[in-house]
């Protein structure tokens, strides 16, 4: 069906006023029968979402807005600013929620002090000339228990005094009302005081503004929001902001007048049969969610982002702010990384440093490696502001639990990047944490502005020798307090030491989480073995010098991957039979002993045959 101009579902409507959406609040709105949860994030992005948590259908308008995420009141599911994707499910604290868990969003534009949205709006919100050339002044909105048609009809005959002559009625001065225009959803009226009606009737819409200089004329545009078939909201905007001292009086004058108008409208509406409420159309489940997705194979760069800003954030560390070319960036959770496909053909992984729900960009930090094989050098020397990069969607193999009484974050050098995301998230949620930064010097602390914002939770350890570092870590993890989790990211030796110290102090493996920069294990790929794929009913032979991943791909079996060196955890496969020969640094010792998962990019088999759940 081709949308016609008068189809209310293709039009932009005001759904709230600016003052309805202060920070850290969730406004409860409704448009054409559909309830909306409208909230402003701390970065001033206004989210207009279907008022329904995906999980159990509870209204999101009773949830809480923490500035970057909206938290459902029922089971605490959290959704990110902008993308509306789920960032955390408290019942599954150790897992990163699937990216497909995403609330329905609607477009939002702020204009004339109003938030405009629509079911399926075409183009841009209306441009109102008389509101373009001035400082619009919003009146109090009035809900009306009547249809838009009836409300607009009554508004045509509405009367008010010009802002500069609120006394007009009491001094028996004539106020001439002129209808500037009227359409299905708005009425513009000009009130001119002066006793003489000459000229006012012919006043053009541009002329009315000039007459207001003396205060004897005011133009108001009344937008009528179709809440439901029998309910509306009148949103009035004056084309001119009255002087500060007069504002309250003007607002009260209009409130009194509009209250009278609403009473008259509702009296008539009450005499008519109540119209059937509009049934909002349920969104069809998109095909990509309704069907089992085809497993992505290989390292797919499905996103294009622009380098909005590049700066030096620490000694030898370049920071990049990546913004979407259009639309919004996909949801990420603390600990997530992206693959960056570099102009020179290399693919490198970088952690997103933003806190959960800080979704206007992805910020990454790249350390120039002295022994760079081309990745960090390319980013440091070749990539410039304005360049477009191909990146993968964010992937999270290092998820943060948000249910610990205390979280200890140990960062070595540039290892701060994933932990910075975690720290900001814990800080915002008021969950206790310590971020320990092991750095060569103060100048080596990346993202200093963000670090400083975390206050006393950050503990820098500057210029320690390797033995001193180990000693310090030993002290920090000397005991394992209950409900405390440890997250480590840093250079291999530091990470190894931290894991050993934690294990020696009695930390269980499932309380110690880590992410290596790279896998420095010498890979032994001399073995030959069979891999049986239980689901694909295929048996393949992996020869010396080949990886399982390569052999799978050669035979058309899709497996996602990222670092392809056993560090990131993306190419994990479930082992059904056989004894894996682990050569990765992603899984912990318990996982290695259990032998029920393996990294197909580097790990092999000790038994002649492995059965994988692929």
């Amino acid at each position, binding site marked *: 069906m081709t949308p016609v101009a008068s189809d209310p579902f293709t039009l932009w409507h005001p759904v*709230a006023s600016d*003052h*309805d959406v*202060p*920070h*850290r*609040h969730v*406004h*409860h*709105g*409704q448009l054409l029968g559909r*309830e909306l949860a409208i909230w402003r994030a*701390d970065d001033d992005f206004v989210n207009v979402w279907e008022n329904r948590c995906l999980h159990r259908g509870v209204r999101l308008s*009773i949830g*809480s*807005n*923490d*500035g970057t995420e909206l*938290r459902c*009141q029922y089971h605490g599911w959290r959704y990110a600013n902008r993308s509306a994707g789920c960032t955390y499910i408290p019942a599954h604290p150790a897992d990163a929620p699937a990216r497909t868990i995403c609330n329905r969003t609607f477009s939002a534009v702020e204009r004339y002090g109003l938030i405009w949205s629509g079911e399926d709006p075409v183009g841009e919100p209306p441009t109102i000339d008389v509101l373009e050339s001035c400082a619009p002044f919003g009146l*109090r*909105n009035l*809900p009306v228990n009547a249809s838009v048609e009836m409300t607009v009809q009554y508004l045509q005959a509405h009367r008010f005094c010009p802002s500069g002559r609120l006394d007009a009625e009491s001094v028996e001065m004539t106020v001439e009302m002129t209808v500037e225009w009227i359409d299905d959803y708005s009425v513009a009226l000009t009130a001119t005081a002066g006793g003489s009606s000459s000229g006012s009737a012919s006043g053009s819409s541009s002329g009315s503004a000039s007459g207001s200089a003396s205060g004897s004329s005011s133009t108001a545009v009344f937008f009528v929001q179709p*809440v439901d078939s029998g309910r509306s*909201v009148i949103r009035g905007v004056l084309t001119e902001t009255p002087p500060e001292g007069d*504002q*309250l009086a003007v*607002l*009260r004058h209009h*409130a009194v007048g509009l*209250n009278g108008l609403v009473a008259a409208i509702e009296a008539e509406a009450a005499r008519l049969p109540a119209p059937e409420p509009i049934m909002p159309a349920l969104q069809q489940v998109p095909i990509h969610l309704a069907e089992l997705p085809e497993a992505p194979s290989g390292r797919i760069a499905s996103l294009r982002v622009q380098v909005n800003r590049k700066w030096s954030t620490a000694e030898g560390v370049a920071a990049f702010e990546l913004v979407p070319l259009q639309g919004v960036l996909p949801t990420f959770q603390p600990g997530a990384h992206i693959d960056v496909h570099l102009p020179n053909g290399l693919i490198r992984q970088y952690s997103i440093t933003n806190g959960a729900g800080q979704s206007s960009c992805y910020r990454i930090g790249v350390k120039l490696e002295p022994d760079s094989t081309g990745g960090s050098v390319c980013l440091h020397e070749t990539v410039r502001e304005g360049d477009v990069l191909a990146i993968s969607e964010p992937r999270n193999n290092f998820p943060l639990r948000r249910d610990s009484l205390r979280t200890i974050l140990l960062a070595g050098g540039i290892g701060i990047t994933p932990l910075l995301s975690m720290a900001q998230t814990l800080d915002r949620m*008021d969950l206790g944490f310590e971020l320990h930064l092991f750095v060569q010097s103060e100048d080596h602390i990346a993202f200093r502005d963000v670090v400083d914002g975390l206050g006393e939770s950050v503990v820098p350890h500057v210029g320690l020798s390797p033995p001193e570092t180990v000693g310090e870590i030993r002290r920090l993890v000397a005991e394992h307090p209950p409900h405390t989790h440890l997250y480590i990211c840093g250079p291999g030796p530091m990470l190894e030491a931290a894991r050993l110290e934690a294990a020696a102090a009695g930390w269980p493996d499932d309380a110690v989480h880590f992410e290596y920069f790279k896998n420095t294990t010498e890979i032994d790929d001399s073995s030959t073995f069979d891999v049986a794929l239980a689901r694909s009913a295929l048996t393949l032979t992996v020869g010396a010098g080949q990886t399982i991943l390569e052999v799978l791909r050669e035979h058309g079996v899709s497996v996602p991957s990222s670092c392809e060196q056993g560090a990131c955890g993306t190419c994990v496969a479930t082992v059904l039979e056989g004894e894996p020969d682990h050569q990765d640094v992603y899984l912990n010792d318990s996982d290695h002993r259990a032998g029920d998962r393996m990294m197909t990019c580097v790990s092999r088999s000790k038994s002649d045959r492995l059965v994988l759940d692929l």
Partner: protein
Amino acid sequence: MIKLYDYVLSVNCYKQRLMMSILDVPYESIPVDFYPGWEHKGEEFKKINPLGHIPVIDDDGYILWDAHAILVYLAAKYDPSGLWYPTSDPRLLGETASWMLFAEGTTNTASAARLCVNLGYDFDLEACRAGAHRLFRVLDEHLWFREREGREWVCSGPHPTIADIALFPDVVLSEEGGIPRLDYPALRRWTDRVKRMPGFEGMPGIFPASQARQN
């Protein structure tokens, strides 16, 4: 220590718990089997309050009933700042009294509707709901103008009063009585502000707000 004859789901008992939590007054909650036991209507309880309703407080032998009266007493006695029940400012005191009476109205409409829905009370539900909407419209407009005046609370002073405490539970639980607050955005913003008062505590159905934005 104050004894509060208390029922966890009662808005009027919650008003006292909230006030004492904010004023940091220790008290002992004496649970009354309000529903389904109707203990407050029994002979034993009528020895404490012959009207047979809760809340009742017993402050070291001093017995007082009626939710809004207890708020007056608690604030007058336990708030050294004198701001919650502003006896030294006649205008504010008058406003406080006025909005306390208004709160009788919200209790008898919005909270009465909740009793019908939740506990099977036999009131005229539709009349309760219509009455609540009439009052909420007035309160929403009032609070909208307060925001324009740079104020946050029901009365015109910079500090909240017992009127905010008396009104808050009736408003914030209205949806349990089938009274949506969709049309009252200023009222909804005010409930966030109440939830952010230092010492705020909730009850079943009343959740904490997120932290206010710093700076």
